[in-house]
């Protein structure tokens, strides 16, 4: 019978500033506190990468903005301003 072999990913070293390491260790501490489990530096870096990739999305702000200026005819005003800018440019540069 063939035993299941666990593949251990190779570990590598990276150089970081002392102040960055201090901040990173703070994240390790906070994560340990939050999860109640042992957290490695690798876990903390992976956590920070996941958060960066997911981004901090706030859909409530999108919903708040949708229709907040209802009836203001803003896009018509924009078109009118762009036309005026074009006319000003023609008067100024003749092109």
């Amino acid at each position, binding site marked *: 019978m063939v035993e299941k072999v666990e593949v251990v990913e190779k570990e590598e070293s990276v150089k970081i500033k002392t102040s960055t390491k201090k901040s990173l260790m703070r994240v390790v501490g906070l994560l340990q506190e939050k999860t109640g489990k042992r957290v490695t530096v690798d876990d903390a870096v992976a956590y920070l990468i996941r958060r960066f990739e997911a981004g901090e999305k*706030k*859909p409530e702000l999108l919903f708040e903005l949708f*229709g907040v200026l*209802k009836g203001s005819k803003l*896009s018509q*005003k924009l078109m009118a301003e762009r036309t005026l800018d074009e006319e000003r440019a023609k008067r100024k540069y003749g092109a």
Partner: protein
Amino acid sequence: MRKELKGNMVLDAGVILNLLEGEKEEVFNKIVRGEITPIISEISLFEVFYIICRVKGETVAENLIRKLVESGFYSVSKPSWRILREAASLKCSHAISLADCVVIATAKAHRTVALFNNEEELRKNRIDNVILI
């Protein structure tokens, strides 16, 4: 046939203003669901700001732009010289506004499409990476 509204898209100021007015619900829903990843050029933010400022004042404009960016759904693109150079070339050959040219050039730099309101100048000019809604 209209190109499908999905993926990365550079939104023109007119579309952003429409969303603030409660229009273009299809675009809004797709942004919320993550089907559209909107990109805004800083030039468009400039336009959105001054139009709101004229109608509602500077504080409202500042507040709404901050919320838009803080929502985390929009990527804000700074117009680099490469983008401005492309925009200038478009402006040279087409009768469209400066801001429209920057939005189209930004879309080109991001290898994606630009989403505009159905404007006459853009309809006439028929530019490849432009979707009119």
